[in-house]
């Protein structure tokens, strides 16, 4: 069953058309990569999916309901996003911060539910932050902050994960770990995810499906093996891109 249905979506900022007639259906347990060069509209598209950009045409439906008909809180309980700029380092503890991820689900006005605390704690543990629980956020490193932002997203337990360049500030080991944590989560909860990234190789390895944004608002949507070709990528990025293949793997590099 489709979690997210985007139908003939048009998005524009000022006079620049970023998306024209984009239609995508995202089902359970799917991982989508969102690629395109700087300014192609990756972030704008993700923001549209949380209702922060109004489409000039077309519709975005979540579980069959248009997102503009959903209450903000209802939408937030189903769709979670990791912002490109991560989270700000304000004076608060790591645990206080990760608990914010439970905000769309909290029932009690004053008290924290045991279930919420458990979910938040296991989200911290997933990103190896459990030992930093009481640390003030403004003493964390860039990578730790990014992991905290990801833990907060995990704590939000959305059906649809939106990730805007999740690998920012992460070392290679954590990049790989992040992807396996997210894959497990998506499988475990029959969720799905859309990841905007500049790393074509990672997208190919990790996402079965791709939305490739081209210049002028055109886009290519389909399976990674079909969309991620030398020709398409060269067109999308406006620079020649080559690839080498070995078995099922494909490695892309600028020629």
């Amino acid at each position, binding site marked *: 069953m489709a979690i997210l249905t985007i139908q003939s979506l048009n998005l524009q900022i000022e006079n620049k058309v970023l998306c024209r007639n984009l239609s995508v259906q995202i089902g359970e347990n799917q991982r989508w990569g969102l690629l395109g060069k700087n300014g192609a509209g990756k972030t704008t598209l993700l923001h549209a999916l*949380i*209702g*922060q950009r109004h489409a000039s045409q077309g519709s975005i439906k979540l579980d069959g309901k248009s997102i503009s008909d959903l*209450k*903000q*809180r*209802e*939408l*937030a*309980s189903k769709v*979670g*996003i990791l*912002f490109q700029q991560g*989270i*700000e380092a*304000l*004076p*608060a503890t790591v*645990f*206080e*911060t990760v*608990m*914010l*991820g439970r*905000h*769309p689900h*909290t029932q009690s*006005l*004053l*008290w*924290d539910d045991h279930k919420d*605390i458990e979910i938040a704690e296991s989200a911290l543990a997933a990103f190896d932050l459990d030992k930093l629980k009481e640390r003030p956020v403004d003493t964390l490193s860039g990578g730790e902050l990014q992991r905290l932002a990801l833990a907060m997203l995990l704590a*939000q337990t959305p059906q649809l994960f939106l990730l805007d360049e999740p690998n920012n500030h992460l070392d290679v080991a954590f990049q790989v770990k992040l992807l396996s944590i997210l894959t497990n989560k998506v499988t475990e909860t029959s969720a799905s995810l859309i990841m905007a990234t500049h790393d074509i190789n990672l997208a190919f390895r990790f996402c079965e499906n791709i939305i490739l944004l081209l210049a002028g608002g055109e886009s290519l949507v389909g399976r990674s093996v079909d969309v991620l070709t030398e020709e398409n990528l060269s067109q999308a990025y406006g620079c020649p891109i080559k690839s080498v293949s070995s078995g099922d793997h494909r490695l892309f590099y600028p020629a």
Partner: protein
Amino acid sequence: MIAQKQILLLISLTGFSVASIVFSLLSGSVNITATELAQSIFASESSLNSQVLQEIRAPRTMAAFVTGGLLALSGAIMQVLLRNPLADPYILGISGGAAVGALSAILVGATGFWLSNAAFAGALFSIFLVFGIANKFSNWSVTRLLLTGVVVSAGWGAVINILLTTSSTNNVQSMLFWLMGDLSQSSVNPAHYLLLFVGLVGGIAVSRSLNVLIRGELLAVSLGVNVQSLRLLLFFSASVFTATAVTIAGSVGFVGLIIPHMLRLVGARDHRILIPSCVLLGGSFLVLADSLARTLIAPQQLPVGVVTAVIGVPAFILILRSTIRK
């Protein structure tokens, strides 16, 4: 998470509030003992001392508590709304509007009821002026609101200076007292208590959303907070709290800025704790400051706003230093 430590903070602040009120009731030029205080509360005897308590000290003490509570509450809300640590209840020009109203009233010789109403009217006018200029419903940006407020504030400042420089010496004295914040003419009515109570309960009710909003607008939206309507609510409630506080006591400085910061520094960052703590500490701080204002150089009185700064500045610096060392 609400830890035991924070519950303890609330309990001790409650104790501190009661102690400050008792201290205020006991201090003054007429010597009243604790026994007499208890007698006047629990027995209906009408001695001179109980008259002093019931008709002079109690109303003034409660006026100080309500004003301080409203100011600290308003300051905490403004700091979330504007996401600026320098924000205080007066930053959007509300006190400026109130001051122009009050000073004009003093100029034409009005006192008491009319003075208060003129101040309140000035404050309301300023709120709608700022809102009207800053508001584009589709794009209600915080920077725009802040800039509008600061500019309107500056405008009021100029008008205040005109009023001060063109008034007679007699009037200038009372104008200055009003501007620095003064509780000698103050009294509270049930509506003021009700407003503080509603502010407290309402503030606690939205405190989870405040915890999220202070982290940034976009994040708050993504976590399900209806930012547009929450901001409108915060703007108007903080404005009404400020307008009421300046109507009671003039523009008492400092309470609204530093009480929320002090509390955050000692660990009350969660608004579920911060909001009630602000009401308690803001209230008791102003009660203490006012007791000193009327006793330090008795029989003369100081404007309470001077005392809040004199105790507040060193206290704040001490807390700031001790938390940096950790």
